[in-house]
């Protein structure tokens, strides 16, 4: 039988670091399941034991206070021992997306001047050798987690202070421009308390997550919050072969809490044929965050699975650990404006927002950049003083780069990010307006719209990249028809024709870990000819220069 526990607010209040948190759990609720993955559970005693083994190994290898150690793990059993083991040894964890190419991995490795890399037990020898060869010129060691776990644990550790950096949260981006957000134990505990309080997460919660454990929402809200409260965590791989596994898992474990970016819910409502097979009514909260929320997704999801008002919009960003706002627990539908922008809910306890233009606040109702203050706010980007300087607005507020306005009721609505806005023939178009409409075509899986300026008479024009659901050979007939219907629909609904509609192969539209479209990367790979060279543009045909 798992230990019966009641969350003791006072005891939790004494926790100052992530190490305190795990040690507290191991002492207080040792045989309670810390997390479940792939039909196997790890309890809190085992988790802490593993963390201690990794910490010991690293300590023995000379890793100490403030040393950066990069970890490259998918969702699974091994991530947590590595992530927290580094911190126990006094180091700073640098988790990166396991699908990062070796080039990006090494660019982060060098930019944070890491001392070592830890990789999963089952990393193929060839890959280990490739890494080791590439690391030679930078120094540092590579460890398989299995070697770390085989070490017998030491009795003493130089545990971190609350203000020590726990990990560097690298924001996604193309090679070279990634920024490592410094998050201290104090920042993280503050954010955990803010989110746990606002969403009333307690130890009865059953949390289902397929979000990446190496990044903000999937790491902090979905795995740290249950470790903090002692809630049950059911972890799935990020690479769900069928999105219906998510619904199936909620049903199977009678989950009460889940989260995903809008794209997760969009895929779910499109792919599940028979929603009556899944009972999602045990859910208390279905967080929709990290990507612009679409009213239609929420409505379809709630109707299809009969979960009215379960969707809770949230807003946050890596610079605040993760969460900054939450829609609230009361049963009420999401709120949207005439342009389909969705309200982000109430600031979490201790969070303050302002909407500004330049150095001044805008008037109520006007669009400006949203800035925030929170105990969870980062002190800056690791070894990047220029970016850090730009991050701070004034009076202790941090910039977000996100645009928003506040309505008369005080609700804040996010509008599209300025840098992605398409200015076509005197109009201002948010990519989302086009993307939502195109994704309504049943032949289309995903879509992204970007502004392209060829310096011709037309000026900037919207270029639409629509991923076909089927392989092109299965729809040879009719690609032209699909492309033309898309143009007609955009013209009929939005009043202009896009500069180009390309039907593209699946997985052409690049996403961040959290499901935000990387518009700029898509645009660049179109402009530099990469998309054409890779044969990703299915229709219309592109003439590739013959001498190339």
């Amino acid at each position, binding site marked *: 039988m798992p230990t019966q526990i009641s969350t003791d607010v006072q005891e939790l209040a004494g926790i100052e670091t992530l190490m305190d948190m795990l040690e507290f759990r191991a002492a207080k609720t040792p045989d309670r399941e810390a997390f479940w993955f792939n039909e196997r559970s790890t309890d809190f005693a085992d988790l802490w034991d593993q963390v201690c083994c990794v910490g010991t190994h690293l300590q023995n290898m000379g890793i100490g206070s403030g040393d950066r150690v990069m970890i490259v793990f998918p969702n699974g059993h091994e991530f947590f021992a590595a992530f927290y083991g580094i911190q126990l040894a006094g180091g700073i964890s640098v988790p990166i997306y396991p699908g990062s190419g070796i080039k990006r991995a090494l660019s982060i490795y060098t930019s944070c001047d890491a001392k070592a890399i830890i990789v999963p037990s089952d990393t193929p020898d060839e890959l280990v050798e490739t890494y080791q060869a590439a690391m030679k010129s930078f120094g540092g060691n590579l460890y398989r987690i299995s070697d770390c776990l085989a070490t017998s644990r030491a009795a003493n550790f130089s545990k971190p202070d609350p203000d020590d950096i726990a990990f560097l949260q690298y924001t996604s981006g193309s090679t070279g421009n990634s920024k490592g957000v410094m998050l201290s134990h104090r920042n993280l505990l503050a954010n955990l308390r803010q989110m746990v309080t606002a969403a009333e997460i307690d130890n009865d919660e059953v949390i289902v997550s397929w979000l990446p454990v190496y990044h903000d929402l999937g790491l902090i809200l979905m795995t740290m919050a249950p470790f903090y409260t002692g809630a049950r965590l059911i972890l799935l791989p990020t690479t769900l072969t069928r999105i219906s596994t998510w619904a199936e898992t909620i049903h199977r474990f009678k989950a009460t809490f889940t989260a995903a970016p809008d794209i997760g819910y969009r895929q779910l409502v499109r792919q599940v044929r028979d929603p009556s097979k899944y009972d999602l009514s045990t859910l208390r909260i279905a967080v929709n965050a990290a990507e612009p929320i679409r009213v239609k997704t929420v409505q379809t999801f709630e109707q299809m699975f009969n979960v009215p008002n379960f969707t809770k919009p949230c807003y946050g960003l890596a610079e605040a650990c993760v969460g900054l706002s939450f829609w609230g627990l009361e049963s009420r539908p999401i709120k949207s404006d005439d342009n389909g922008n969705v309200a982000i809910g109430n600031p979490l306890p201790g969070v303050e927002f302002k909407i500004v233009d330049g150095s001044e606040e805008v008037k109520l109702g006007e669009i400006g950049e949203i800035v925030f203050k929170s105990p969870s706010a980062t002190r800056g980007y690791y070894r990047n003083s220029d970016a850090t300087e730009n991050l701070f607005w004034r009076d202790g507020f941090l910039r977000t780069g996100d645009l928003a306005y506040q309505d008369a009721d005080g609700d804040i609505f996010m509008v599209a990010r300025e840098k992605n806005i398409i200015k076509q023939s005197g109009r201002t178009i948010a990519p989302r307006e086009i993307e939502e409409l195109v994704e309504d075509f049943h032949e289309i899986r995903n879509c992204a719209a970007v502004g392209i300026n060829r310096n011709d008479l037309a000026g900037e024009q919207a270029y639409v990249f629509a991923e076909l659901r089927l392989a092109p050979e299965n729809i040879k007939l009719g690609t032209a028809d699909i492309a033309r219907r898309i143009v007609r629909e955009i013209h009929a609904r939005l009043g202009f024709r896009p500069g*180009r509609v390309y039907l593209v192969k699946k997985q052409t539209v690049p996403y961040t870990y959290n499901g935000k479209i990387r518009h700029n990367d898509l645009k660049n790979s179109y402009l530099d000819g990469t998309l054409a060279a890779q044969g990703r543009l299915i229709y219309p045909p592109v003439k590739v220069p013959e001498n190339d």
Partner: protein
Amino acid sequence: MAKYQDVVDLIADQLGLSADEITADSRIVEDLGAESADIANIMAAAEDRLGIKIEEDKIQQIEKVSDLYAVLTLD
């Protein structure tokens, strides 16, 4: 050199029409409903798809589908 059908397809794709709505005599603006940005986009598409760049000063000469075909064929 462009084939006539390529030119029809290109216009149909840019304007969201089906090919059978387009004849050689169709006037691109008056009959097919193109706006000025659409014309520029048609020129850009001709360059990308057929590899033929139309000089901006030639655009004045293009009224009908057949004119566009002629410009693309002569160059």
